[in-house]
């Protein structure tokens, strides 16, 4: 489809006797979901541009078990966690970055007591770090005059108090950042959490993503920025429900940044 991405697996690193700077945990959505795959690709383009020496687990990666845990299947979660921990510890992984706040939360908070201790960062935090360290330069004003509103993912914001990193990264583009009435700690869920992504909603008079998209549309945005593959899907569907898909686009922070660089 497009130019070749440089992606190496941990197995390749091992064969070369090297350790990567970071492990990119792609996650199930980032690996299989058509929309989320684009986010993975955009993030890798940025990593390539910044010459980050990163690895992925490739076919060895398996679900973190997060969604099973939220659904109540602690058994399946811990099976997944222990398998992944065995793999990660075997590779002596120190630092993990992921585009999925759900993987981020569970790897960071719930893996340690099962024996998996890593420095886990969300991709918005990592992008900010790359920019701050001067490794990733953001240029171009493709977003001049555009209004962007950022939707806080529950498992990044409220759950782990990461509010500033995505906003600071977005601030590097030339776009105008506008906040929804409910944002940061009081941001409304997109409706996908707690395994809702994989089931029909319970009976009600409205879908949560439609309500949340309404919040976003009230800011008159050109772009709704997300930082979670599930939020992205929910907000995209919400835009369709409001019949605004012609005037408003939903993009991940990594995609916004990659586009700004014409990557």
């Amino acid at each position, binding site marked *: 489809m497009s130019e070749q991405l440089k992606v190496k697996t941990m197995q390749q690193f091992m064969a070369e006797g090297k350790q990567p700077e970071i492990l990119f945990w792609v996650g199930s959505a980032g690996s299989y979901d058509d929309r989320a795959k684009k986010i993975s690709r955009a993030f890798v383009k940025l990593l390539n541009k910044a010459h980050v020496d990163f690895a992925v687990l490739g076919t060895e990666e398996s679900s973190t078990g997060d969604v099973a845990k939220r*659904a109540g299947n602690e058994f399946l979660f811990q099976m997944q966690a222990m398998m992944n921990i065995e793999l990660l510890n075997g590779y002596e992984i120190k630092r993990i970055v992921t585009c999925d706040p759900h993987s981020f939360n569970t790897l960071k908070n719930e893996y340690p007591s099962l024996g998996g201790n890593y420095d886990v960062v969300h991709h918005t935090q990592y992008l900010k770090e790359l920019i701050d360290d001067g490794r990733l330069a953001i240029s171009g004003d493709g977003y001049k005059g555009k209004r962007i509103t950022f939707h806080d993912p529950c498992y990044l914001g409220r759950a782990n108090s990461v509010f500033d990193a995505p906003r600071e990264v977005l601030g590097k583009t030339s776009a105008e950042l506008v906040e929804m009435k409910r944002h940061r700690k009081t941001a409304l869920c997109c409706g996908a959490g707690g395994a809702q992504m994989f089931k029909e909603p319970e009976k009600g008079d409205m879908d949560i993503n439609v309500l949340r998209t309404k919040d976003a549309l009230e800011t008159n945005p050109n772009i709704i920025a997300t930082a979670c593959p599930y939020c992205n899907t929910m907000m995209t569907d919400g835009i369709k429900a409001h019949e605004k898909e012609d005037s408003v686009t939903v993009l991940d922070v990594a995609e916004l940044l990659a586009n700004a660089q014409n990557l």
Partner: protein
Amino acid sequence: MEYLPNIIFAVALIVGIGFFARNVKKLSRNIKLGKDVDVSDNKSQRWKNMAKIALGQTKMVVRPIAGIMHVIVYVGFIIINIEVLEIILDGLLGTHRLFSPLGPVYNFLIGSFEILALLVIVAVVVFWIRRNIIRIQRFIKPEMKGWPKTDGNMILYIEFVLMLLFLTMNATDFQLQRIGAEHYVQAGSFPVSQFIVPLFDGLSESSLIFVERTAWWLHILGILAFLNYLYYSKHLHILLAFPNTYYGKIKPQGQFNNLESVTKEVKLMMDPDADPYAAPVEDDAAEPEKFGASDVMDLNWVQLLNAYTCTECGRCTSECPANQTGKKLSPRKIMMDTRDRLEEVGKIMDANKGEFVPDGKQLLGDYISHEELWACTTCNACVEACPVSIDPLSIIVEMRRYLVMEQSAAPTELNNMMSNIENNGAPWPYNQMDRLNWVNE
């Protein structure tokens, strides 16, 4: 006969406090029905949380109108208690305004109590209007019908009457001081009650004394009655907010506990040296631990303390995305149901010499429906909204665990999702060997 009032007072005090102590014992017994949970960590952070959230009311003022009004009632409640101390001592010793030798300090104190009392009356009236005239959404949700509604108003009426009695007592006292009645020492300042003195114009000294004494007695007996009303009311939060914020969650909100009983089993399954045909160890022959919660005894004691602490303000429910979109789930109802069921279990124990006899009912199904549990997005909005660190989400998750691990009663789509993870390591039915295909698409 001279000491009769003192004796009556002492008896009232002992009965009032004794009955309250009995309720506290019952409360503590019920809370201890919960499973043990280690909350001995991070002591300094816990004290800080209590100071900030309970004492400092930081989460109340997130909503400024209700918050500031609440702070007034709360400060009034605490400060006016200094006056209650004097009243109790007067009652026991047969003195009148025992602290009056404090002079200007005393005048200042009484003056401040009066101003606070007036502010409390204003706040209580505003609260009543919000509940009954404006009918703010969160006060009229389905779970607020019946007793919860009556309870909410009852508390306001009691507070209103207590403050009115306090001011009446002061007004007549002031008038008695002015006409130089015996025993009524010249003490105190009455910035508020002086304005109601004209109501008692023309009353004889004996009538004034009668009104003053009646107000005095009703005020203190009312306080003792209110103290005993707490256990039957949502108003317990005035006491339990403190321990509850101390024991509240201090980990990141997104972090759920890992069930240790599951860890043991999973480790055994993954241990290549484990003998799959080994006879169970003596210890394991006991009833296997239940996964998740179907009744209150399966929850931990902090979750049960949470239930008693809830004052049904409904901030959780008003922030809940499921509730806002018309789903059945209301985090407040989860807490109210947990408390109601716990009370029911407690009553069964009372009737059976302290033993619980199964009554064929449980929290899951009889109080909380599957539909409510499956509507939750685990977004933590309810946890964030609670002004006293209650965690309704942890109860929801505990009950989902029971549904999934003990009953295999997850919605079909979720069962599909979970078998996909089991089979190919992703919630969708894709081949694990295709995990890296995105690179070349």
